């Protein structure tokens, strides 16, 4: 009788012990108890050209938007600014035209792979496009109190269950969300959520707020796909170098 009870209690204990793990997707490989996001990832969408629904055009692949509800809640003045950006995009897009750092979240959906490096203590994201780097500080420290503005913002990460949540602030007002001229100010605040749904997919969401440009926060979401090719690794897309080679190939310039 006593033996039975011990076995029974043991069984209940085992079930209680495993239950939380069941809730945490047991199929996922883990690092320090969290889903292992290590690897090379890329989107399969056209958000880099336009984050909203758009038809095809010369040099622009058609695509379904990634904005929830497809509407971006611009303040009235900003609607005109966005239209102006769109009209001038061939030379005004800082990323496409000048190879400047693409900002967040645009770095995620550039048509290039990126690498997530995750240890039990640290996370970093390295992008193939113009070798952009984002160290994500995970130690619970607040964003630095600095007036300095950053192209890629400053990232502070934390885990909410199995979701990596990255809070990005300290931006400048120089980057665009896409080649269609969607823009923001230096008050941009992005909260990204990376949730692994199976070993080869991450659900990516970014909540975007900017009280100078939008009337309310809005959200984009998309899947990230693991680059599963054998031997996959991040290579180099040295945009700045290529651009200089093109622009200055005949320098010094003569009449």
């Amino acid at each position, binding site marked *: 009788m006593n033996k039975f009870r011990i076995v029974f209690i043991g069984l209940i204990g085992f079930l209680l012990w495993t239950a939380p793990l069941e809730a945490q997707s047991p199929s996922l490989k883990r*690092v320090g108890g969290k889903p292992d996001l*290590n690897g090379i990832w890329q989107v399969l969408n056209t958000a880099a050209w336009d984050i909203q629904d758009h038809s095809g055009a010369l040099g622009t692949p058609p695509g379904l938007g990634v904005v929830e509800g497809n509407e971006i809640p611009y303040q009235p003045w900003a609607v005109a600014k966005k239209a102006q950006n769109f009209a001038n995009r061939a030379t005004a897009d800082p990323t496409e035209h*000048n*190879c*400047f*750092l693409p900002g967040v979240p645009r770095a995620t959906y550039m048509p290039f792979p990126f*690498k997530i*490096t*995750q*240890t039990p*203590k*640290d996370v*970093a994201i*390295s992008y193939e496009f*113009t*070798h*952009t*780097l984002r*160290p994500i*500080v995970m130690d619970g*420290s607040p964003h630095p109190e600095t007036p*300095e503005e*950053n*192209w*890629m913002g*400053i990232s502070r990460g934390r885990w909410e269950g199995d979701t990596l949540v990255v809070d990005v602030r300290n931006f400048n007002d*120089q980057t665009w969300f896409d080649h269609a001229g969607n823009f923001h100010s230096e008050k941009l605040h992005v909260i990204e959520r990376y949730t692994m749904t199976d070993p080869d997919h991450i659900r990516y969401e970014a909540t975007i707020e900017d009280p100078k440009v939008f009337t309310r926060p809005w959200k984009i979401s998309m899947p990230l796909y693991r680059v599963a090719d054998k*031997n996959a*690794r*991040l*290579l*180099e897309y*040295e945009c*700045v*170098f290529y651009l*200089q*080679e093109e*622009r*200055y*190939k*005949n*320098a*010094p*310039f003569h009449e």
Partner: protein
Amino acid sequence: MRLFTNSTSFIAALWLVAIAPAHAQTPRPAAKAFTPAKLADGQPEIPNGIWNRRGVGGLDNGALEAQDHRPPNPLDPTPANPLSVSSRDDGLNNVDRGFVDQFSEKLGKTPQEGQRGQNRERRQMGIAEPGRILPWKAEADAARRAFLLKTNPAQGLKYVEMDARCAMPGLFFGNGPFQFLQTDKQITILSEYQHFTRTINLDGRTHLSKNIKLFLGDSVGHWEGNTLVVDTTNFNGVTAYSREIAYLTDALHTVERFTLVNADTIDYEVTIDDPNQFTRPWKVTGQYNRADDLPELLEYACAEGTQTLRNIFGDPPSK
């Protein structure tokens, strides 16, 4: 955004020389063997933190141009300047970082850093060749000297170094800060300078095909005890070692050795093999030191603000 300028490091170097007392090196007792923790995949654990590097490459001492190659420059070393390297006929300026650092260790620092300094092994930094003279092939040395004469002022885009162009400088520029991240069968090195990432695969894979050429090359590695050995090929032929060695060719092959010495020190050695330019491989020794005063890597935006090429060449003609 953290900015580094050559002029500030040069002024710092002058200042150090001005106030540093002459000193003789005293041998230190050998440090006891360091036993790093082991990670799940068997790798020795590189102590967590931010690291600076010294002894390697050409960024720091760029102000110390060798006079025999270039027109006079107010920043050039002179015989009266103890940092002068111009009297040597190797034409290299990248060897004195260790010299400066040795002085800097003597200077006022926080007690904690002083203690850390005591743990440092004295190490000869820079090019580890007799007389610091590189084994140039005669024709490659002549081509290099002819090249350098066209760099100031630059007579075309290729005479402007990658660092000044805000383009990827390769493995040998930048003294940090760096961060090492270790994951399963892989080491990732993050560099604040030029925001680049190096990936060193430890899973036994082979190098990429010759058709893929990279500024940072393709790196595979393995551990030999406490030493990480990294073999890198697939360079693109526009990697500089320093301002004086402006281009290594795409035949470049490097073998780096990162040895964990203690919780704050990684000894570094790189063997540089470029058979197109040198009669044999040559070595450089350096060191990574943990930098506790730097809490995190910041953004290094360079191409976004640079006017360098416009200042040299003017605006490109509009199409």
